[in-house]
């Protein structure tokens, strides 16, 4: 599984990354977590507002830091 997190590095983006890590650990999954802070790349993915979470190429949420529970519902 490949999880991308888009965000320039503000507080909310950190929250999102943290929540993704926790969720992956809790689900006991093997996942590659990638942080994207390059604006050009975000634009190519169609992301307008950060933080955004993209799982296996599918954008799951934009503009907010998702909770661990939400992330679990996407990856399990």
């Amino acid at each position, binding site marked *: 599984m490949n999880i991308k997190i*888009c*965000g*320039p*590095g*503000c507080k*909310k*983006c950190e929250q999102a990354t943290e929540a993704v890590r926790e969720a992956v650990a809790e689900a006991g999954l093997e996942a590659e977590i990638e942080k994207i802070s390059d*604006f*050009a790349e*975000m*634009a*190519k*993915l*169609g*992301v*307008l*507002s*950060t933080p955004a979470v993209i799982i296996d190429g599918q*954008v799951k*949420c*934009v*503009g907010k830091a998702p909770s661990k529970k939400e992330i679990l519902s996407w990856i399990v």
Partner: protein
Amino acid sequence: MEPIKPTGCCGADAELHQVTGEEKQNEPSEQNEQGEQKKQKIKRVAWGIFGIALWFVLYKQLLPFSHWFAYSLLGLTPGSHLGEAVQFFVYDTPKVMMLLLLIVFTVGILRSFFTPEKTRSLLAGKREITGNVMAAGLGIVTPFCSCSAVPLFIGFVQAGVPLGVTLSFLIAAPMVNEVALVLLYGLLGWKVAGLYLVTGLAVAIVSGWIIGRFNMESSIEDWVREIRAGEQLDMDTQLTWTDRIEQGKEAVRDIVGKVWPYVIAGIGVGATIHGYVPEDFMAAVMGKDAWWSVPGAVLVGIPMYSNAAGIVPIVEALLGKGAALGTVLAFMMSVIALSLPEIVILRKVLKPKLIGVFIAVVGGGILLTGFLFNLII
């Protein structure tokens, strides 16, 4: 259904529609669950009405309470410096906090109806003037954090939103926001809050429109224009009212949790000044007659960066001590809307020439606003 209707609020109406939509899809075996949902909704509306009523009752008690607290409980003399300062602080702090809670919660729910993606598709291909007006208005209700300014800018430009319209959005979004308006209303009254709302929108609309006239699309950084449009995201998330209320609560936790120390500090400063500093202290420096104070205020304001919550108490203190309204509004706008950090962020997507025009036009708009109000009020 009957108990819901009399509230007449659009929220309850939307809920009604949603219920009928769900009913059609539901299997007969789910009748029970449906009843549960209905009950829950009625309960929620009842709680809402109860909450708002309680809010008003409490709000009305604040002024008598502050008088009782300062003059009866503490035994301070009405009209004395300390008495005035204490009464002001005990009245204003809960008042502003209560206003913030109510408005931030309401705006949080309102914002759950908007996303940057929706705003973009509303603005794409709009003609200038109409687009500028819409962009400034949408800037208030579209949820977006300042670190999203760059991806948002790129996304708007790609989708064919004109440059000037995009900038109207980016100027209005930080400048006209609910926290600034609540604080202005709570501390300075609805006239100042209203003036700020109208002039803030006007500066955003007109500045964006003027920049659009300059046809400066070529001054967007090349890498931005070279990006091939990504696929349009279709985040078709169906939010229920539970989600929306959750988002309102989230906004309260997030915003009120962040700004309350500024509010209290600001009111503390206000209370001290209210009691102690002479009335016309600032009049000589920032009064109506000192025309140079308007450009001075803008120049001082640009390198300063503060959110609305931090700046309003200062504004209040300045106004209370004889500074002219136009000068103070100009100062507030330049701090919030034309800050150095924002310019640094925009520099990533705009070439220096366009940045220069941006600062000149927005700064000019703010100056004009300042002079205008000093002239007419």
